[in-house]
């Protein structure tokens, strides 16, 4: 009996040894990332990964980076910040990757960037835009996206020009949507507009009916959502069920994606949103990327795919400039870089925050999304006001 207990302990130790396989030294340049492949951010996370994968294929076809092949290691963070943090810990200490690409969503990036910072690894973050991320004094997080705070500026300007006053503002209770909301509140104040309704909701919320009934009572001119895809879709669906009307409906993320139109059909008509990128923008290689992406994955790339692709090119430019994958050299190169690729301009300030890229507003028109603002980049004219549910 004594022996049995000892044996069981020995057995556990052997099992433990299986967990620690010998480390092999790879010759490739290994890039690590975690993306949401499941959970709330899955749809957008997948696009980002696919965009990035296209860069990996292209750079290897061109003979690799610094003469070495680029290899991608990726995991699914389930849209959860805590899983993201664990995975970046694993990427850095276990997989020993050379370079890091950030996860999707500001939420997961807040957690993952702390791990990267702890290990002094620079991280090119293609899927995050809440300015909170760059207000913590970190030196290793490099943003690609226009800041969340600026997302709704053009739409608010439009509202102002039409004489609108009352705004209903709703947002998820996490980093990015709060960033969008902070930007809206700031801008509305400057424009002399009034927030007549404001409410946060939880990450898993799918029922907005009580909220909509309240919003209806305040009769807002504009309804603005700091949202992602599932919540903006559910909100519009329930807005129709409850006959909520406003002259402008605008949401973050959701309307910038093809799925928004697919899920809502005609109900998407006239809804505004914003985008970081569209294939129609006059950028070097944007059109080619969009064509290749469609050929490979069977659907148009959204801006998250463009971001993933752009992140690859930023990484490539930085490594070439640094001449190695040494974290300190890559970091210095990223700070100094000012480059334009298919996704747009990349230039960061001293905190790593993106300052080179403008914001674009989109609108769903006749089943397609078009850039409507700024006018220089527009592919269609803004349709105003939103058509009432009864008149469709």
């Amino acid at each position: 009996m004594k022996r049995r207990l000892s044996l069981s302990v020995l057995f556990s130790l052997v099992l433990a040894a299986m967990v620690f396989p010998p480390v092999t030294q790879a010759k490739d340049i290994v890039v690590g990332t975690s993306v949401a492949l499941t959970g709330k951010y899955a749809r957008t996370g997948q696009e980002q990964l696919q965009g990035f994968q296209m860069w990996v294929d292209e750079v290897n076809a061109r003979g690799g980076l610094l003469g070495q092949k680029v290899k991608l290691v990726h995991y699914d963070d389930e849209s959860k910040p805590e899983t993201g943090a664990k995975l970046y810990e694993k990427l850095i200490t276990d997989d020993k990757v050379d370079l890091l690409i950030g996860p999707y969503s500001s939420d997961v990036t807040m957690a993952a960037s702390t791990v990267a910072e702890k290990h002094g690894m620079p991280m090119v973050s293609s899927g995050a835009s809440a300015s909170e991320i760059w207000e913590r004094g970190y030196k290793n997080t490099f943003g690609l996206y226009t800041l969340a705070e600026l997302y709704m500026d053009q739409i608010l300007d439009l509202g102002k020009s039409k004489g609108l006053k009352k705004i209903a503002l709703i947002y998820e209770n996490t980093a990015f949507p709060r960033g969008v909301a902070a930007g809206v509140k700031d801008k509305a104040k400057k424009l002399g507009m009034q927030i007549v309704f404001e409410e946060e909701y939880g990450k898993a919320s799918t029922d907005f009916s009580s909220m909509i009934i309240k919003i209806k009572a305040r009769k807002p001119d504009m309804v603005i959502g700091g949202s992602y895809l599932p919540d903006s879709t559910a909100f519009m669906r329930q807005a129709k069920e409850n006959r909520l009307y406003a002259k402008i409906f605008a949401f973050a993320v959701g309307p910038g994606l093809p799925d928004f139109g697919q899920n809502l059909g005609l109900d998407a008509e006239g809804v505004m949103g914003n985008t970081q990128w569209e294939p129609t923008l006059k950028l070097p290689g944007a059109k080619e990327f969009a064509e290749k992406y469609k050929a490979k994955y069977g659907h148009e790339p959204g801006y998250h795919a463009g971001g993933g692709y752009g992140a690859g090119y930023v990484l490539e430019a930085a490594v070439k400039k640094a001449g190695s994958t040494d974290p300190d050299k890559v970091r210095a190169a990223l700070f100094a870089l000012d480059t334009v690729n298919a996704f747009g301009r990349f230039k960061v300030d001293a905190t790593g925050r993106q300052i080179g890229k403008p914001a674009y507003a989109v609108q769903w028109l006749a089943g397609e999304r078009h850039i409507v603002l700024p006018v220089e980049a527009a592919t269609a004219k803004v349709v105003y006001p939103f058509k009432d549910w009864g008149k469709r």
Partner: protein
Amino acid sequence: MPDGGRRFNSGWIGVVLVVLASLAPLGLNDYQQSFLLQVFLVIALAQAWNLISGMTGYVSFGHAAFFGVGAYAGALFLTWGFPWWLAVMKGAGIALLLAVPLGFLTLRLRGPYFAIAMLGLNEVGRIVATLWVDVTHGGTGLTLSPELLPSLDVKYFTMFALALGATLLVAGIHRSRFGLELRAIREDEEAAEMVGVNTTLNKVIAFVLSALIPGAVGAVYVMYTSYINPSSAFEHARNIEMIVVVLFGGSGTVWGPIIGAGTVMVLRELLWAQFPAAHLAALGVLLLVVVLYLPGGLISILRDRQRTRPDVLR
């Protein structure tokens, strides 16, 4: 039951494990060391659950509540400039302060009512963390700046000390009169009361001790992940894990949670990054198998089958 031979034997194994764990940081890389840290975390939590649920039979479905409270307390005190060890103590202290009234209130409940009440309390914790935005930042969560964090070695040894402390506490109680009284409550609470056991006080003491440990563990955990949000602090999977680990190893025993933690963690390590869903499904299957076919846990196979086992969960 007193059994000098076995105690002597398991004592030796214990000493060997302690020495190995103390020397481990010398030979392991960061990731492997982090893995062991997580094993200690699970052992400490499992022992805490074992203390209340394994010994008294009051099954808690929400002990992660104390973990979450400790994690938030640890994160907050660290950001407010307290040294890490004080933050850990605050985490444990706040869990303890909450556990006293909660213990008196919830332990009046029997069977499923207690289990459900604890489950509800865990959710209440999550709600408070979500809605108390001024302090917790709500759903955004708290990130700890790297310069605030103690080194991996510090966290490793703190977690190790917690696991060891929790185990010794359970072992000590196991042999004491207090432990005997707790088991009497498990067997038949009314009868225990009739023979003069102060059941309420005993239960509350066990409950408070079992809340203190997750409180401290939570605070160390947040220093390890450097991030906490309401859903990760009050994660339901953590409750599942505590229960499965204890039952799998052997409920109400000293070694059960350790054997359970070792096995479950290795299984998890092999699966989680690649198959997060498969790993939890496997835990569910384990739980079913143990409940239906192996009520005494793994440890009951290892032991002499002829020996009566009064210390095993019915």
